């Protein structure tokens, strides 16, 4: 049972901060550890590769731009259903034969739909490489979508939705997004709903596969026991026969709706689950890093954040309290959550709003900024401790078009943010009166408002 340890921030540590501050620059060793090559295959496909021959393992992560947000109205959940069904048989292999092949080669192959992309990951032992890449190619180019497999996956997704509907966190999150993005597909759950999933037909899955998997919306990242030359050939064999271009799409930008809103969803549970959000910032916004640092101090920094200190450490109101930036391609929000005994929900919300307001009005202190930079730059290498992490990060960087030098530059982006930058962003972004809160439970003294 992992428990988050307790924490308290003290004033007395300015001297300690000074000792550690300047010395902590991770760029040089990190650059050595992560040497990204850009590979161009014989047929002109590109991929990012980190060669590492220390274990006989190859890890692949790839994504097609365009995700669940493009699901047709009334068929929400389509991209997610494709992700569930695409490994349920391909080519001459039916569902059981395909799954058995995956097991025989000890491969893990996963597909996932997000709002803005459809991604896949694969991990194989080197010795099975060629046969496993052939299975991936089959899944992407000749999925069977057999009726019985599609029906089985639909029923599993519906069961998953029923389970989520028992979970107060899920209930709150779903309501929150629906409220923030009315009439926009970002307000719809990626999984779809019991009202939409039955209407998705096999022909819709086939159309998705034909229209969304193409070369021009594909990014590929590879880590492990493969050379650049060998990878070039593998890229061509897996992705080389995809169409040149994905079918075009248009998704409008949207600003999260604002308003001093509290939505209470009554459930007979002892603890109120609270989730909250307001408009945030996109990943490509020039202020992104200033907002990122601000959020670290507000509620992002694990045991070090203001929300953690005020709500958990000082008052014992909650086990978990957090906030995070959630950027999409066409919007951005800042979101968070907590959970507290019903009797103490009103107090928790009051403190949350106070901290929100205080950050907007007063911003960070110099010490908070310095500590945040020290942590955020110093801990960056911790994200490179497994092939899966590295491959997924490279895919994220490619999707956001941050450039192949991003990993080396990232800490300097953090370090160049000034106190003024952060405090301007806090003032511009945060508005306690624009927060939307959803509370699931039987909270004492919390009134629904602003609906």
């Amino acid at each position, binding site marked *: *049972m992992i428990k988050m340890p307790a924490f308290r921030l003290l004033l007395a540590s300015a001297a*300690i901060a000074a000792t550690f501050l300047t010395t902590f620059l991770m760029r040089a060793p990190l650059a050595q550890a992560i040497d990204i090559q850009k590979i161009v295959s014989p047929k002109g496909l590109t991929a990012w590769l980190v060669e590492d021959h220390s274990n006989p393992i190859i890890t692949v992560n790839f994504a097609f731009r365009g995700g669940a947000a493009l699901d047709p109205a009334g068929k929400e959940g389509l991209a997610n259903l494709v992700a569930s069904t695409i490994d349920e048989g391909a080519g001459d292999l039916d569902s059981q034969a395909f799954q058995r092949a995956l097991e025989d080669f000890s491969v893990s192959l996963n597909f996932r739909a997000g709002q803005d992309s459809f991604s896949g990951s694969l*991990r194989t032992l080197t010795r099975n490489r060629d046969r496993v890449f052939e299975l991936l190619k089959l899944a992407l180019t000749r999925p069977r979508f057999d009726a019985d497999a599609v029906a089985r996956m639909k029923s599993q997704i519906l069961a998953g939705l029923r*389970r989520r509907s028992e979970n107060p966190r899920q209930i709150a999150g779903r309501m929150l997004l629906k409220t923030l993005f009315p009439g926009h597909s970002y307000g719809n759950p990626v999984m779809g709903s019991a009202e939409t999933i039955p209407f998705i037909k096999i022909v819709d899955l086939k159309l998705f596969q034909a229209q969304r998997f193409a070369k021009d919306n594909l990014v590929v990242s590879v880590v492990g026991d493969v050379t650049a030359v060998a990878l070039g050939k593998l890229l061509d064999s897996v992705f080389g026969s995809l169409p040149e271009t994905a079918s075009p799409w248009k998704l409008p930008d949207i600003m999260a709706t604002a308003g001093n809103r509290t939505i209470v969803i009554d459930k007979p549970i002892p603890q109120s689950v609270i989730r909250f959000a307001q408009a945030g910032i996109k990943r490509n916004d020039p202020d992104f890093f200033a907002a990122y640092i601000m959020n670290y101090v507000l509620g992002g920094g*694990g045991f*070090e954040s203001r929300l953690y200190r005020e709500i958990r450490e000082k008052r014992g109101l909650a086990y978990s309290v957090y906030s995070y930036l959630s950027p999409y391609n066409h919007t951005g929000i800042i979101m968070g959550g907590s*959970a507290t005994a019903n009797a103490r929900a009103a107090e928790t919300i009051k403190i949350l709003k106070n901290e929100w307001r205080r950050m907007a009005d007063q911003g960070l202190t110099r010490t908070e900024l310095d500590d945040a930079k*020290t942590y955020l730059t110093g801990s960056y290498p*911790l994200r490179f401790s497994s092939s899966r992490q590295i491959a997924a990060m490279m895919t994220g960087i490619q999707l956001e078009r941050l450039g192949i030098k991003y990993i080396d530059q990232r800490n300097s982006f953090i370090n160049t943010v000034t106190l003024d930058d952060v405090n301007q962003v806090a003032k511009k972004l945060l508005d306690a009166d624009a927060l939307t809160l959803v509370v699931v439970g039987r909270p004492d003294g919390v009134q629904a408002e602003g609906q």
Partner: protein
Amino acid sequence: MMRLIKLLGLLLTIYAGLTAAWDDAVEAAIFNPDTFTLRNGMQVVVISNHRAPIVTHMVWYKVGSADEPPGKTGVAHFLEHLMFKATKTLQSGEFSKIVARNGGQDNAFTSLDYTGYHQTVAASRLEAVMRIEADRMRNLIIDAKEVEPERQVVREERRSRTDNSPAAKLREQLNATIFLNYPYRNPVIGWDHEIVDLTVDDLRRFYDTYYWPNNAILVVAGDITADVLKPLAEKYYGAIPAGKIPPRIRPQEPPHNAARTVTLSDSRVRQPSWQRAFFAPSRIYGDKQHSYPLEVLSQVFGGGATSRLYRSLVIEQRIALSAGSFYDADKLGPSNFSIFASPRPGVGMDQIERVVAAEIKKLRENGVSQEELTRAKTGLQAEAVYVRDSMGAGARVLGAALSSGQTIADVEAWPDRIGRVTADQIKAAANAVLRQKRAVTGYLLPGQPTPNQPQTNRPQTNKGG
């Protein structure tokens, strides 16, 4: 603990002829750790992995919730929370602040058999975290000022994990039913009425009994070698005197003579579920020769989309939405072999039970095929290769094994021992373990929480599902 793991170069050679090659493979290893013991009895384990310039530093105490005194459930976990408060040299909260200022991340965990504290930092910062981790081994200050707010945090944690979730509440009751006498019947986080009554003295006594170097294991994984670590370990941990640790004696299980059921009905349940847990041996407890065969059996029987249970219940009979089995051998005390299924809407629990019973009967009479055996072993052994890829995984696997009665040799020999499991051993394990009188069946049902509702058979149709 995640399934134990295994070796790579080895697997390259054995793939061609899986069964035959095993005889040559005996000396293969997964993590190839170095180990030494400090003069005060603290064991040190080093797993070198130089892929990134970082280290994971862990201290494992060989004490978990199953070592708590009667009536004091939750004390091990509560103490874990307090370990982040003040010591004789650090102010409350300063520990994690120092870790963060070194660009590191830290946390802790409590389990049935162990309690662990860990930080991941740049290799150049290792000494800074060793200093403060060693400090809190003996210098913690436990007082009411810290205990009271933290008690509320722990109770909120309990509400989040258990009390707010019908499935978690059922799991807790099932655990309390399958173990008749062994302390695994108590939840790791503790029963709320006992958490409320834990005193400063209870917490201090637990700390002073178990938090000593000769009851702890230091595990460091990452960009480090034993030569570099040894002087640091001696400087920080070697300076702490050994304590007198009570022997790890726990109440033992009597024979299990009756099938039991637990039922939880709740209006919030929208998807019913069925599970059956069979009381089982572990690597250390009971008929432990069955532990490796049971791991292979769980893979064949319920380990994924081609397993027997999934094929039978989900694909062929179409009465369940999902189905599988689970077995964890890595415990100091007894374990359980669990089977679970989610019935399709309109399908009764009795239908699930009939099909599961038929599958168990087939298994007990005919065992598993050579093809199933080979496929299961290949899959399990591949995990031993994959686990090496993550820098921190070795520290977690070895720490858990060493603090719950196993040795480094046991961990390193895992793929080999899995490779030697025979179909006959699996059949014998199935016949010993998969017996109704050793089992508890759990039903999670929609409906009103009426305690004495008969546990059956007809999950109401899913409203709004």
